[in-house]
C-alpha cells in the first residue's frame, strides 16, 4: 500500500489534535508515515502509532529552533526522499503552510492549502476546499508531482487505529538557506488555559457590541462554561479590546468548530470568511437586521449584557 507522509505538529512531544485528524485522512489514501522534528520528537511515537502511523521518523537539531522554517523544510525533504510517498499532508498552520509550500517547489509538485476534507480519487487524492468566504465548495487535485496538501483543523474525526509506529532516526543535511533567517529571541504566548482558537470544538466570539475591553470577561465566562476558545471580530481587535491572536476572519484566523457563538458581531463578509464553515452557528445581537442572522441555526435578538450572563448561568446550572 502507498505510504503517505504526515508532518507532525507537536509541543515538546505532545501531539496537537490537527495532526491526529491528519492521520485519519491519511489512512483513506494510504499508510501514514509520520515525521516529528525537534525536542520530544521520539515521545510522539506512542500516540501517533495509536492513531495509525506505521512508522515515525524523528530528527532533532538546534537549527529547528534557531532558524525560521527552512531547516524544517530540509528535514521534510529528507523524509520525502526516504519514503517516496504518494502524498504529503501538513497541518494548515501559518508555519505548516510555509513548510509545505517550499517542499512543493523543491519537488516540483502542486500544492493545495486549507483542505476541509480529503478522499481517494482515480487520479490521486481529491481535496475539498471552501472558497469566496465559504460561499462555494471546490474539489481539487494536484495534477503535477506528488500531492502536497495542507489540511485545516477540525476537518476529520480523530480515530484510534493501532499500527506499528516503528521509530526511525532520520538523517538531515541542512542546505545553505537553512541558516538564512535567525530567530534572535522567542517569547512564548502566555497560556490562558483555554483551547487553541483554530482547533477548539467550540468558539465564543465577541465584537463591537461588547463595547470595551473591560466587558470581555462576559464572553470569557461563557467560553469557560463551555470549555470553549475565545474569538474576537476585527472591530473588537482594532479597538484594542482583545489581542490580534484571537481575531477571527479574513485577516485573522479561520475557524471551523462544531459550535460558533457570535455575540455583538454584525457579520460583515470579512468575519463570515473566517467562520462560515462552522457546523452550528448561534448569534446574539441587538440589531435584528444584522447579516449574521442569515447564517444562524439559532439567533437571539437582544442585549448581550442580559442574554450572555443568563446563558452562562443556565449552562452552569444544567452542567450541575
Amino acid at each position, binding site marked *: 500500500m502507498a505510504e503517505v507522509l504526515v508532518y507532525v505538529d507537536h509541543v515538546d512531544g505532545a501531539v496537537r489534535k490537527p495532526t491526529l485528524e491528519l492521520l485519519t485522512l491519511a489512512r483513506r489514501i494510504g499508510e501514514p508515515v509520520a515525521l516529528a522534528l525537534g525536542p520530544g520528537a521520539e515521545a510522539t511515537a506512542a500516540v501517533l502509532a495509536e492513531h495509525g502511523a506505521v512508522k515515525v521518523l524523528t530528527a532533532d537539531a538546534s537549527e529547528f529552533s534557531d532558524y525560521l522554517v527552512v531547516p524544517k523544510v530540509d528535514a521534510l525533504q529528507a523524509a520525502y526522499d526516504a519514503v517516496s510517498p504518494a502524498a504529503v499532508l501538513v497541518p494548515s*498552520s501559518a508555519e505548516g*503552510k*510555509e513548510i509545505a509550500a517550499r517542499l512543493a517547489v523543491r519537488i516540483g509538485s502542486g500544492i493545495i492549502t486549507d483542505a476541509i476534507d480529503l478522499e481517494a480519487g482515480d487520479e490521486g487524492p481529491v481535496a475539498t476546499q471552501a472558497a469566496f468566504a465559504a460561499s462555494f465548495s471546490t474539489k481539487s487535485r494536484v495534477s*503535477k*508531482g506528488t500531492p502536497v496538501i495542507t489540511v485545516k483543523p477540525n476537518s476529520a474525526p480523530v480515530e484510534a487505529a493501532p499500527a506499528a509506529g516503528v521509530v526511525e532516526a532520520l538523517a538531515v543535511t541542512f542546505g545553505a538557506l537553512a541558516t538564512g533567517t*535567525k530567530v534572535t529571541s522567542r517569547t512564548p*504566548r502566555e497560556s490562558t488555559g483555554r483551547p487553541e482558537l483554530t482547533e477548539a470544538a467550540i468558539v465564543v466570539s465577541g465584537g463591537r457590541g461588547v463595547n470595551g475591553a473591560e466587558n470581555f470577561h462576559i464572553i470569557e465566562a461563557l467560553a469557560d462554561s463551555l470549555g470553549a476558545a475565545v474569538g474576537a471580530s476585527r472591530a473588537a481587535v482594532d479597538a484594542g479590546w482583545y489581542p490580534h491572536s484571537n481575531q477571527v476572519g479574513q485577516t485573522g484566523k479561520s475557524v471551523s468548530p462544531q459550535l460558533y457563538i457570535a455575540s455583538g458581531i454584525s457579520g460583515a463578509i470579512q468575519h463570515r470568511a473566517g467562520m462560515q464553515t462552522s457546523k452550528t*452557528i448561534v448569534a446574539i445581537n441587538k440589531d435584528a437586521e444584522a447579516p449574521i442572522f442569515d*447564517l444562524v441555526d439559532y439567533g*437571539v435578538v437582544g442585549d448581550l449584557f442580559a442574554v450572555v450572563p443568563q446563558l452562562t448561568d443556565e449552562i452552569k446550572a444544567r452542567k450541575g
Partner: protein
Amino acid sequence: MSLRIVVCVKYVPDATGDRQFTEDLTVNRDDVDGLLSELDEYAVEQALQIADEADDAEITVLTVGPEDAKDALRKALSMGADKAIHVEDDDLHGSDVMGTSLVLAKAIEKAGYDLVITGMASTDGTMGVLPAILAERLGVPQVTLLSEVKVEDGVVTGRRDGDTASEQLEASLPALVSVTDQSGEARYPSFKGIMAAKKKPVESWDLEELEIESDEVGLEGSWTAVDSATQRPARTAGTIVKDEGEGGKSLAAFLAEQKFI
C-alpha cells in the same frame, strides 16, 4: 547605495461583491469590481516607511494580471511608490500559485532587488504561501508574517507573532519580507499623490520578455486542477427569537438539545 525594494501586489475581486466562478472554474472577474488587495496595502505602506528611513531607496510595485490590474499599480503609485511593472499575457489566464510565483520570481530578478515585500496573503485565494514560495525560488531568506519590520545597514529585523510564541527575526539582504495587517495602518493616497501617479512609469512585460514558456503557466500549465465548484446551499433559516427576559435560557435549551451541554 540605493536600496531597491520590489513590492508584489495583487488585483482582486471585491470581497463584498457577489463572487462567482466561470465555466473553466477560474475566478469570474467580469461582474465584480476589482481593487488592490487590502492586505497588500500594508506591504506598500511598510515599503514607504523603510524607504523614508533609507538614504536612498527606490520602490517598484509589481503585479501579474489582466489589463485591469493596472488599477492596483496606480493605487500603489498614488500612495508613493516610484515605478511599476505589469506582467500581462493572455497565456497567464488560470495560473495557480506555482505558475504565478514563477512569473513573479523571474520579474523580480529582471527588475533587480535588495528587498522584496508582500502582503501576508491575497484576499481572494487566501492561501498565504506565495511569500515562502518566492523566497524558495529566489534563494533568499524569508522573513515572513511580520507585525513589525525594520531595515538597517543591510539587515532586516522584525517580529513574527505565531500561535504559540512571538519571535524576533533577523536576516541579511537580499531578503523577502511579508507583513501582516498589524504592521501599521496603510496611508490614503493624497490628491497630490494621485496626480503624481499619473506621470510615473508603468512598464509592461510579457512571458517572452521573462523567458517563460506558455506551457509553464496558465490553466493548462497549472500544478493543480479544480474539478468542481459548487455554491454552498444557503444555510436554512434557523430559529430566531426576540429576548423578552428568557433569551439566554432558550438559547441554553437549544444548545442542550444539540448536545453541546
